């Protein structure tokens, strides 16, 4: 097991290197001068040069690459030209917000997707099943950016039930920072009002972000459940007089956990990535918004940082899922 983990970690390092190569190449294919943007519209050429020197942009690309790699080994992702701050600091500032959103969405996706998938499977090919599948496909097909805006207009602008954007009301002081995730921090410090405030801000973006994930979980659970329900051991369980409810809810659910887990692992990185759209719509100050604003400014260190962070997350999530698989699936537990 330990050897397996070590091997995976080494592999992850290798993959990260590949990722760095890709993002670095992508970032430098086009002539772009972020220094000019940072210097301001009126800056003279030598002022732009000052900035370019400061950020090492005047060096040849291979040298920049080697320097970036060197920095990376020390946990340094370079500096954002736009915010002038180290990318790691910016990420530390924005990542908790994204994490909060993704965790909330995942929870939503699991809590809604798993039961819906089960119901759909039990009532296979009947009206509720068709309806559920239609909803599932719809959730994938809905453009998040568009539907997010519609929801925002409905719940925030027309009905005024929910706040429009941001993470907290302007005058609500944030809870003492612990994780940076407001929901968590406010709970940890017992600030219920702040928790409610943060939750009311997070509901819509989390909902929109959860849709594709929810659909995936639903679909997988339905498929798995159909397979399990059709399996011999369920037939056997039924033949032994175990009630259908218990067969569905306990036995089959346990089997459904594994693929759900796999989906969460797969979707984890994916959802971090799709925060790009949702955070833009809801002004959620997370890494997605950070990536978009940096990309549009031609500021590539943050974009690379975000890409690496998400890639790393993806790899770690898969590693964890693999390990959890081993824990949860007795067939793999004793396997070498």
């Amino acid at each position, binding site marked *: 097991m330990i050897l397996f983990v070590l091997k995976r970690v080494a592999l992850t390092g290798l993959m990260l290197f590949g990722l760095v190569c890709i993002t670095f190449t992508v970032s430098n294919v086009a002539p772009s001068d972020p220094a000019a943007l940072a210097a301001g519209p009126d800056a003279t050429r030598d002022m732009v040069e000052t900035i370019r020197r400061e950020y090492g942009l005047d060096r040849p690309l291979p040298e920049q690459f080697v320097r970036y790699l060197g920095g990376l080994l020390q946990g340094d992702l370079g500096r954002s030209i736009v915010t002038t701050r180290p990318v790691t600091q910016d990420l530390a500032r924005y990542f908790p917000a994204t994490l909060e959103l993704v965790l909330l969405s995942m929870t939503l996706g699991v809590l809604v997707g798993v039961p819906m998938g089960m119901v759909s499977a039990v009532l296979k090919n009947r009206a509720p099943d068709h309806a559920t599948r239609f909803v599932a496909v719809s959730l994938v097909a809905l453009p998040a950016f568009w539907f997010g805006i519609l929801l925002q207009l409905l719940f925030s602008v027309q009905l005024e039930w929910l706040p429009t954007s941001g993470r907290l009301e302007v005058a609500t002081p944030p809870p003492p920072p612990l994780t940076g995730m407001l929901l968590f921090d406010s709970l940890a410090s017992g600030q219920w009002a702040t928790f409610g405030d943060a939750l009311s801000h997070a509901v819509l973006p989390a909902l929109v972000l959860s849709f594709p994930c929810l659909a995936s979980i639903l679909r*997988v659970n339905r498929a798995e459940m159909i397979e399990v329900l059709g399996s011999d051991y369920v037939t056997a369980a039924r033949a032994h007089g175990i009630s259908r409810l218990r067969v569905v809810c306990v036995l089959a659910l346990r089997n459904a956990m594994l693929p759900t887990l796999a989906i969460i692992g797969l979707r984890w990185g994916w959802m971090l990535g799709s925060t790009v759209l949702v955070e833009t719509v809801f002004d959620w100050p997370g890494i997605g918004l950070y990536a978009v604003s940096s990309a549009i400014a031609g500021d590539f260190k943050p974009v690379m940082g975000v890409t690496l962070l998400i890639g790393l997350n993806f790899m770690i999530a898969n590693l964890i899922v693999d390990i959890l698989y081993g824990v949860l699936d007795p067939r793999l537990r004793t396997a070498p």
Partner: protein
Amino acid sequence: MSATRPSFAQRHAATLRQLRFYAWSFGRSPSSMLGLAIVALFFALAAFGPWIVPYPLDATGAMNLGNRLKPPSAAHWFGTDEMGNDLYSRVILATRTSLWVGLTIVGAATVVGVPLGIAAGYFGGAVRAAIMRVTDVFLSVPGIVLALAIVAALGPGILNGIIALAIVWWPGYVRLVEAKALALRNEPFVEAARAVGASHARILAVHILPNCTSPIIVKASMDMGLAMLAAASLGFIGLGAKPPAPEWGAMISVARTYMPNWWWYAVFPGFAIYLTVLGFNLFGDGLRDILDPKSSRG
């Protein structure tokens, strides 16, 4: 002797029976049929759009500022946009852009991904290790973020968007095909072919590739919708088609500032995206149920 020659139906009885079975299964699912209908409509609109819309010039840079932001009416079914152009015409004409985007991305991803996947699965060993490691790296890249970076670097425009999305799309096909090819490699008929000295090329072409087509077709049909959605997302962030060419994502991107008072501007293009992606997904879902029933996974 022509009289005794078996008819077409007789010669292909097994195939026809299979096809009849597919059609029967497909037709039994209302959602699949709905998907088929939407996809058919989408193709029809893409093909005949310019001849059926009332104001075809509105997609090529016409301006009618006196007619800005008019609500839906008999003259303008979907209303008009901020340049006074007919939204119905622009939404319909954008199907062609979307179709092109979807086909190109999926086509490119298939062309790159399938051969790599087959090579990885069939040859195994170092070839497989190399291909799959690279694939894994690309798979771990958050697609939309990488696309964002690519488009931000290359500049916006449909072509750059397509390039960006194709770059992040192919690894899925490698994974899919690799698993299938790996399984097929050890099938008796492949071993038999190898035993009688068939060349790699022949085995790949005759035995491996045809047996991979079902999942590829299923994935491609699902991906059509998703690729269009991804392209629209890029359009929304401001990295979409060049004006004046109509493109749904870009239209929403502009239209969102006109919400909610000029709701029609954003609602119709958004609904068009939704319908199209829904159609392709339902269609693909239906195809999967009949062609590849074992793999109804995420």
